[in-house]
């Protein structure tokens, strides 16, 4: 009890019950030492401790492992006479005795339920009850309830009561001067910091008159207001996951499991006092509805974008300068106000904060441009998925707005690979998510610019008419539409300039490149005679014509597809990084000889291909057939890895060529049916070493070495004519590196074949009519095209001036009729089969061209093929 005896002790408040004073001569009791403390059950029997997690004090049955029924577990016995009663086991059946006792988890004692407990705590219900009482037929009928209501009060209440506290009073030392006016209804507490001054004050004064001076009063029961400043960046009233509520569901102050957040614990505790009536569990849309929550928010509400404004308008009246993006003068006024110290009457019970709030950092708003209009239109909605992040980027860039550097990208726009890039990780091959990422850097730039070009279509339209005029004033180019689109491509405003700066199709020939850039600039400026100006006046008319075509094609190659490329493709089955592709090991041979065999009705060996084929194990099982290849893991045709860009993947030419039709007949099938299952000798059966030679890198290094020593003598070859051709080949490789207009060694389709495929019609015309000079020009054109696509070949290209000087004029005229020449040269070797397979070759090469294959690679393959052709020839 609080000691209220004397005035001197008035300030001293003591809580609790004092110990009984010791009697004279009695010694204070010593506490029982720990080892002597024993646990006994209610019958006084000693209880053994079994371990905290193995039963505590109550393992087993009387410290045995048995049960009430004995050692053996009970069995279920039920007979007709003696029906076993269906016993439904409740949780009590598995509880220990003491759990059911008064202090256990399921006490079996009579307790007052909430219905009868003191109702003073439940204010809302109290109010309702009062209302009911007022409207009841017998007013004040609830008075009886109040009288007989049993009290169920918490321990805290009990303790406080024992210390002299009464319901309705505040906690703390008693106050003297400001007596507390006793309310008629003590249950109603007053929340808030201060009562409004007025009649209540007056009434208190009124009361004061009757109060003696020496009477002290209990403090008011007020709930302290939380003055902790909001220093986080969460929204107003945002409450994070409260560990108390999340874990216990009740606002218990037991223990703070999250010691990490100890600095926040105090605020939690403060909250807990405040939030007695708060909903339990976690609330907020971010967390969904917890199991403990009683009322659901509309969790199925769909967040549609239509709920949001897509235009930030000035809702404020006037000049639209208000708002949170308001310019400075509006903001600064408020700021100055804030800095003023509060001067004036401080309410009772309040004091100026000793700790200033200066710790809160205030970041100045960004400077707004003067001509900024606070209306924002959102870009078209493109979901920022990994697939179209590129598209997003392109979109944002194409809009001509602030081209943000990658650092300022929103993190939502980054995908895994981009983040990896930022972190400096090496990308995992094959894991890229966008087709565009398989493209080389140059190609990406190209695509971007194409996109820009597409956006500037309006500008192009104007430029197109210009270009039309310019074209009409000149001899018509061979392919008008081709030149056409190149023209307005080139004239597409600033893109042309940027393109010219980073894209050098004629980097090999600096002068030509210069002319090309001048051409672009001229076109951009809208000169009608753009081409005329930039062309070299010293050139012949024919050369000019060539160059015009080249330029046109150079800029035309730039625009070939649209930027929505990414949405049209799916992932490749094979990694694009690897230069290998899986192809069936054996391929059906060329159709053409079969066609002729069919025509001759020579069915049988000629028309039949036999392959090793692996049926699925399950299929064999279902067909009741033993698996022919029990140890194989292959299903279907065996596949092998091949160089991806190998012409052989699409050609079956040398083999069919080298295999005489008559020879193939018997043994081929025999080998297949033979028990050893040895497969037929194929050209794939070359050794690993040979395959390696095949690779492109090998060839590139070879070419580079040749570039290093340009005057290298051609290796001696068997045949004089071959020597000549190879010489020109090597020279051309030196000069052009990636030249596609391949000079072919003796036993391959001549270069004219490729010309027919790759060169434009004008090229074709010239190749048949022009002299050697024309040929070299053509080669240059080819190089230009090749360079468009492959930046990595520029290092080869650097040596071009030297190469030019040493390029010899071959003595023999260039072969003009591709098929014929091939036919003649191949006749002995391939017995005409090659001729018949020429269309196939053409088709496959077109295929390659479509796929933008590096010409160097083709070069190698072709060389390789002829090598092998020779080899097989020797074998025969």
């Amino acid at each position, binding site marked *: 009890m609080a000691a209220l005896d004397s005035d001197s002790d008035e300030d001293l408040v003591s809580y609790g019950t004092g110990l009984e004073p010791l009697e004279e001569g009695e010694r204070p009791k010593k506490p029982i030492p720990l080892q002597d403390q024993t646990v006994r059950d209610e019958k006084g029997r000693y209880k053994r401790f079994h371990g905290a997690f193995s039963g505590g004090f109550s393992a087993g049955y009387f410290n045995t492992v048995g049960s009430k029924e004995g050692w053996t577990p009970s069995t279920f016995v039920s007979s007709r006479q003696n029906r076993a009663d269906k016993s439904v086991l409740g949780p009590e059946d598995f509880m220990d005795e003491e759990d059911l006792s008064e202090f256990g988890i399921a006490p079996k004692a009579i307790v007052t339920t909430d219905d009868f407990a003191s109702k003073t705590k439940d204010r809302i219900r109290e109010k309702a009850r009062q209302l009911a009482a007022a409207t009841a037929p017998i007013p004040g009928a609830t008075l009886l309830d109040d009288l007989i209501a049993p009290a169920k009060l918490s321990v805290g209440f009990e303790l406080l009561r024992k210390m002299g506290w009464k319901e309705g009073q505040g906690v703390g030392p008693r106050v003297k001067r400001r007596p507390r006016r006793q309310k008629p209804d003590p249950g109603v507490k007053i929340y808030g910091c201060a009562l409004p001054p007025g009649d209540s004050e007056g009434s208190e004064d009124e009361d004061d008159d009757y109060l003696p001076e020496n009477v002290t009063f209990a403090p008011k029961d007020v709930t302290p207001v939380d003055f902790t400043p909001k220093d986080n960046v969460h929204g107003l009233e945002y409450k994070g996951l409260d560990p108390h509520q999340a874990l216990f569901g009740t606002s218990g102050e037991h223990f703070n499991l999250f010691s990490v957040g100890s600095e926040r614990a105090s605020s939690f505790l403060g909250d807990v006092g405040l939030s007695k009536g708060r909903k339990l569990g976690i609330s907020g849309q971010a967390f969904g509805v917890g199991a403990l929550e009683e009322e659901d928010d509309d969790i199925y509400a769909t967040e549609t974008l239509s709920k949001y404004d897509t235009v930030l308008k000035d809702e404020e009246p006037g000049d639209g300068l208000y708002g949170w993006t308001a310019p400075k003068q509006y903001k600064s006024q408020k700021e100055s106000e804030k800095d003023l110290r509060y001067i004036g009457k401080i309410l009772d019970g309040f004091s100026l904060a000793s700790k200033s709030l200066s710790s809160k950092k205030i970041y100045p708003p960004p400077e707004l441009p003067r001509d900024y209009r606070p209306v924002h239109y959102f870009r078209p909605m493109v979901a920022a998925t990994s697939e179209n992040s590129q598209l997003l980027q392109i979109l944002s860039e194409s809009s001509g707005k602030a081209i943000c550097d990658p650092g300022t990208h929103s993190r939502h726009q980054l995908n895994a690979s981009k983040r990896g890039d930022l972190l400096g990780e090496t990308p995992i091959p094959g894991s890229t998510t966008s087709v565009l990422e398989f493209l080389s850097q140059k190609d990406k730039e190209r695509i971007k610019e194409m996109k820009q070009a597409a956006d500037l279509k309006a500008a192009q339209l104007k430029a197109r008419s210009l270009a039309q005029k310019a074209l009409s004033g000149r001899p018509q180019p061979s392919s008008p539409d081709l030149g056409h689109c190149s023209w307005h491509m080139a004239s597409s405003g600033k893109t042309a300039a940027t393109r010219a700066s980073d894209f050098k199709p004629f980097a090999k020939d600096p002068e030509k490149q210069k002319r090309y850039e001048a051409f672009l600039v001229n076109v951009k400026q809208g000169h009608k005679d753009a081409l005329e100006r930039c062309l070299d006046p010293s050139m012949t008319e024919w050369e000019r014509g060539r160059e015009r075509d080249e330029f046109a094609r150079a800029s035309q190659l730039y625009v070939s597809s649209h930027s929505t490329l990414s949405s049209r493709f799916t992932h490749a089955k094979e990694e694009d990084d690897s230069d290998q592709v899986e192809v069936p090991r054996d391929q059906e041979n060329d159709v053409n000889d079969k066609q002729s065999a069919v025509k001759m009705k020579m069915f049988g060996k000629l028309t039949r291909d036999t392959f090793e084929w692996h049926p699925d194990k399950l299929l064999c099982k279902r067909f009741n057939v033993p698996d022919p*290849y029990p140890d194989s893991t292959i299903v279907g045709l065996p596949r092998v890895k091949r160089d991806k860009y190998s012409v052989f993947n699409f050609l079956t030419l040398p083999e069919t060529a080298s295999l005489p039709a008559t020879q193939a007949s018997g043994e081929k099938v025999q080998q297949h049916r033979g028990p050893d299952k040895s497969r037929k000798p194929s050209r794939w059966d070359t050794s690993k070493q040979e395959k390696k030679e095949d690779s492109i890198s090998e060839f590139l290094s070879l070419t580079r070495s040749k570039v290093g020593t340009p005057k290298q003598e051609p290796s001696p070859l068997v045949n004089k004519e071959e020597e000549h051709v190879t010489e020109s080949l090597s020279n051309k490789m030196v000069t052009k590196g990636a030249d596609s207009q391949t000079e072919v060694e003796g036993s391959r389709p001549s270069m004219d074949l490729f010309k027919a495929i790759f060169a434009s019609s004008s090229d074709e015309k010239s190749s048949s009519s022009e002299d050697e000079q024309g040929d070299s020009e053509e080669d240059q054109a080819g190089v230009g095209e090749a360079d468009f696509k492959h930046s990595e070949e520029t290092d080869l290209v650097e040596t071009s001036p030297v190469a030019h000087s040493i390029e010899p004029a071959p003595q023999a005229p260039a072969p003009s009729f591709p098929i014929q020449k091939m036919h003649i040269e191949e006749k002995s070797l391939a017995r005409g089969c090659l001729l018949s397979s020429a269309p196939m070759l053409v088709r496959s090469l077109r295929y390659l061209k479509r796929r933008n294959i590096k010409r160097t690679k083709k070069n190698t393959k072709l060389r390789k093929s002829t090598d092998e052709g020779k080899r097989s020839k020797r074998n025969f």
Partner: protein
Amino acid sequence: MAFPEPKPRPPELPQKRVKTLDCGQGAVRAVRFNVDGNYCLTCGSDKTLKLWNPLRGTLLRTYSGHGYEVLDAAGSFDNSSLCSGGGDKAVVLWDVASGQVVRKFRGHAGKVNTVQFNEEATVILSGSIDSSVRCWDCRSRKLEPVQTLNEARDGISSVKVSDHEVLAGSVDGRVRRYDLRMGHLFSDYVGSPITCICFSRDGQCTLVSSLDSTLRLLDKDTGELLGEYTGHKNQEYKLDCCLSERDTHVVSCSEDGKVFFWDLVEGALALALPVGSGVVQSLAFHPTEPCLLTAMGGSIQCWREEAYEAESGAG
């Protein structure tokens, strides 16, 4: 006294029209006998599959569940289940008695031209214009085919199955025979797009019809040409061909509304049976008797030999 061996009856060709059934299911895309030849299936363009008794002309059941026209059907060896494939790219396994869909195999990228059960009806082989033959397992609940035979370069027009072989004819002009026992694939080049293939009943030959209006009889093992049968017209449609019940004759549909019979050995035209004015889309030959079913337009016709007299009640 020993009787001389009775002379084998000369083969009779079905040329007497016994029945004409109006199927009432749009155009009949295919007509197929069941395993013993007592019943037949008609695949309609109105997405239904119907089971008939062709001799009596009674409709036994209609199977509906396809999403598009039914292009081919086959019955299992025990007559307990049917399979069908259609333009909805699905292969459907039916229960004969209940008429319910047992399984629906999806995976083809194009319409399914042809379906076949294997000998024990544990696998359905389906050929589609997506140039693949897919082997669907009827036993397990797997959604994916057991194996996909995608060697063909063009659509598969016809698939036939023997006990250990899968024969697939493709529009790319090749007949591919997958020999499961040997683990080999034999690809025979015919040149023209193949419309129909079938094994001879002795299992030694394959009959191949192609769009160059030619039927070829190829030796199964060597691929050699044993016979060539021309005279009919087949240049546009996927028409059926087959061999007669005793392998004596080669039978083929024709676009000029006839069914052509050739003597297998001699290769001479034995009979050009006029069916109607339209294209004979499909035909099926009875497995044991000289009985032919042809499909033209929305109806099917049943043909028997000249001497045939409808047995009362026999069906």
